[in-house]
């Protein structure tokens, strides 16, 4: 318990340092643009592929589990849409990004720590925590909602392709289903979750990397811890946010 409180205290103090006034906003702006490309644009590929197959599997599973003449087939489209918007595009995509982006952040910052690059920044008079972490947080907060929206679109498209190609639903029924009883607030809910998850992934991973001590072995461990802790926190906050936002 004491260890947990110590770590939490260090995390809060790190965040305080991260959100202090930047030395030179123009340099931070440039760095944020770089992170948008590195952490955001470079994640489009994996999110697209995963979302497409996720949508396809959801559609096929819904179809095989509702093989009953009482249920209208357009419910397959509706089920696919709601599952993707409510859960898969925000939470599952966040778990995947925790693996890809989280480990990358922890190992990048951890390597900078063990090779004294962070000490070099501090000696120059640069707030290393802010310079290294703030642009990453801003970039993921800006871009992860875009990734979620993309994931929703691609997921539903994947469901439509799989459903029609497998012959479990007609194109007309699927399109009718994804339009039926649509609640726009679900999109807002999904995007709010995404913002929380983006902050968790970036700040927790950066925290793990920033306080690495030792060498390459410890950097590897920090990277693993970043993924594990981010994933657990994502799942925990998923429950809390769902209760708060949908109850």
């Amino acid at each position: 318990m004491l260890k947990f409180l110590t770590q939490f205290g260090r995390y809060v103090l790190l965040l305080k340092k991260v959100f202090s006034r930047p030395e030179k906003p123009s340099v931070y702006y440039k760095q944020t643009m770089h992170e948008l490309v590195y952490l955001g644009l470079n994640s489009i590929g994996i999110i697209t592929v995963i979302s497409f197959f996720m949508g396809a599997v959801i559609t096929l599973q819904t179809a095989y589990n509702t093989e009953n003449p009482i249920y209208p087939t357009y419910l397959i489209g509706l089920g696919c849409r709601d599952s993707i918007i409510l859960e898969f595009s925000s939470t599952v995509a966040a778990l995947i990004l925790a693996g890809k982006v989280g480990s990358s952040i922890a190992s990048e910052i951890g390597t900078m720590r063990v090779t004294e690059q962070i000490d070099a920044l501090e000696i120059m008079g640069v707030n290393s925590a802010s310079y290294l972490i703030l642009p990453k947080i801003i970039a993921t907060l800006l871009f992860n909602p875009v990734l979620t929206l993309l994931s929703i679109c691609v997921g539903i498209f994947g469901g439509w392709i799989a459903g029609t190609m497998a012959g479990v639903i007609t194109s007309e029924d699927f399109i009718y289903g994804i339009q039926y009883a649509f609640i726009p607030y679900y999109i807002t809910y999904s995007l709010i979750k995404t913002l929380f998850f983006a902050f968790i992934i970036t700040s927790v991973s950066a925290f793990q990397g920033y306080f690495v001590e030792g060498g390459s072995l410890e950097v590897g461990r920090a990277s693993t811890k970043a993924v594990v802790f981010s994933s657990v926190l994502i799942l925990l906050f998923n429950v809390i946010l769902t209760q708060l936002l949908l109850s």
Partner: protein
Amino acid sequence: MITIKSLNKSFNGKQVLTDISVAFEPGKTNLIIGRSGSGKTVLLKSIVGLHDIESGEIWYDDVLFNKLDFNAKKEIRKEIGMLFQGSALFDSLTVDQNVRFPLDMFTDKTEEEKKDRVNFCLQRVNIINANNLFPSELSGGMKKRVAIARAICLNPKYLFCDEPNSGLDPITAILIDELIKELTEEYNMTTIVNTHDMNSVMQIGEKIVFISEGLKCWEGNKDDILDSDCTTLNDFVFANALAKQLKASL
């Protein structure tokens, strides 16, 4: 001028530095020497504020550095250049961007002025036509020289070098030592060099402080070092067979 008074530092209850008092003069190459694990790097990192000290005073001219808050320390640090043991160049930046970094961060110079300053610093350390290379594409000696260029690009008042020639061949090591000495005299910097290389000591040691097991055991210059009656210093200086023969012939 950097003055240290009664500095004490420990890690998890283990005393690493005990009652260190010493003054480092400007325009001179001040050397901290000692065996590996003697506390040299901890002393250097304590002086620049990377380690918090238990007690004692660290004065940068007339400013008591260790009592300053984070922001005030940042202002002093803008006058510090540091060369790390592993060079600590930013992997994701080119040579040009590494040297330019402090200029981007702390000055309002135009692009043209920054370019001139970067080229001047790189030429000063004899790095030619390498502006677009990444650190991974440089040799050990080149990395050290680029790190020196980055350290001097804001005309620092204080220069710290942690084992500047570790991992380098003797010829390159002497070139780096000479470069540090020349720059110290040229810019009248207060330079502190951590080393356990006796070639460096004899090459550039204008003021030498010997540390052993966290204690300051001896202080002097390169002319005094061969005649010292300090046993631990003599064991360190005359460690190899050739040096022992030299000592016997003195």
